[in-house]
């Protein structure tokens, strides 16, 4: 039995893993003395990805590493494998999730201020159980409210490599008559948008 090529091994692993694999995880498939360099791994992944162009599946880079996924093009057919329709999320949930994604870390109260309505416990629970958000700390103010942030699972689920890949927030139109007064305020909120390194661990 000949030794299979690096590419073949990686292919088997990516297809079997059921989720994204990092370079480190791929390296660990090999015994210490035969462990490939990161460069060699990356090259193999690239070749693999090229092999799958135009097929029913593709190799995608997401926050958690590389993942093989069934392409969106065939989703209308493949989705029929399962009886249930894919979950649809309410506007309330999506707005809450968007606020957490773009403004993390953020408290429930701050979300409510922007949305103008209460955030139900059910929404927070659903987002937490899906492991899309988690508590990353508590604000140091009365009541010590929890600070929410998104997780890597959130990024993986929405096919994002980092928070930077989120669609850009709409620009604030500069209201002439408010210009001076609001300047600081708006700049302030813009600054807190996810920076390039804001990818949660």
């Amino acid at each position, binding site marked *: 039995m000949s030794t299979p090529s690096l590419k073949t091994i990686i292919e*088997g692993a990516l*297809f*079997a893993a*059921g*989720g994204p694999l990092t370079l480190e995880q791929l390296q660990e498939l090999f015994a210490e003395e035969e462990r490939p360099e990161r460069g060699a791994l990356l090259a193999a992944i690239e070749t693999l990805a090229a092999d799958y162009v135009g097929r029913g*599946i593709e190799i*995608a880079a997401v926050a958690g590493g590389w*993942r*093989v*996924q*069934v*392409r*969106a093009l065939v*989703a209308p057919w*493949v*989705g029929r494998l399962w009886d249930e329709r*894919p*979950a649809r*999320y309410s*506007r*309330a949930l*999506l*707005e809450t*999730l*968007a*606020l957490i*994604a*773009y403004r993390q870390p953020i408290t429930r109260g701050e979300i409510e201020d*922007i*949305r*103008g*309505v*209460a955030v139900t416990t059910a929404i927070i629970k659903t987002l937490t159980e899906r492991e899309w958000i988690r508590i990353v700390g508590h604000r140091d103010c009365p009541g010590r409210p929890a600070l929410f942030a998104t997780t890597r699972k959130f990024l*993986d*689920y*929405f*096919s*994002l490599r980092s928070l930077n890949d*989120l*669609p850009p*927030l*709409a*620009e*604030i*139109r500069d*209201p*002439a*008559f*408010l*210009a*001076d*007064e*609001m300047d600081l*305020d*708006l700049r302030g*909120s813009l600054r807190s948008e996810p920076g390039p390194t804001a990818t949660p661990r």
Partner: protein
Amino acid sequence: MGSAQQELPFALVQGAPYLTLPLDLYIPPDALEVFLDTFEGPLDLLLYLIKRQNLDILDIPIAVITDQYIEYIDLMQGLKLELAAEYLVMAAMLAEIKSRMLLPRPESLAEEEDDPRAELIRRLMEYERFKQAALDLDALPRLERDLFAVHAHLPAGHLTRIPPPVDLRELLMALRDVLARADLFTSHRVEKESLSLRERMSMVLDRLCGGQFVNFTALFDLTEGRAGVVVSFLAILELIRSATLELVQLEPFAPIHVRLREARAGGDPSDQEEE
């Protein structure tokens, strides 16, 4: 973001989409409930009113919008629909802005800095950004809807999946959490219940798991002594009470047989278990 007005149906009434509200603001009562579900709060409703009339968010005719908003709120209250308190707070705020707008402003103040609408406009714009961000998020390709994870089967023999270790105390800690959540366990009955009885119930069920009839007496191990026999007996009674087991006696004084209550054919008291 604001230029293209979205022609999303504002409500669906008996399947027909309503793109605009009737001008006289009459809405069938059914639609009003849809209405409340359709809007995510007072800011959302205000945005709708503004967009519907192609008004500029930066220069809201506050008197008009306030009147319309309050008409909606009155209507909904008139129909006894439960209205979130936030809607009323907004109504009060609008009324206040409106009255401030009506007051003559001293010339000395730069009007830019004194526009009573400023805070409202800021909030509306901020909300609108995230309303759009939510739509954008929803449009991202996502797992389970647009994309699916692949699962290749791994041939047997290569999988040395190490099951996670579990500490007994960890298990008990989990149980304590459940107990804390479930009032069910406050009943004395459960607390006093002996685990040996439950264990015996499982053992009896195990003996009967083939679905065959078993001689009643064969379920007792006399070497266990009196206590053991009593536990077995109680276990069987408990299982009969919970309709898990059934007792069968073909004629008076014939041997009693026990089997799982399961509509399974092929069982006959004569093919009792060999002992």
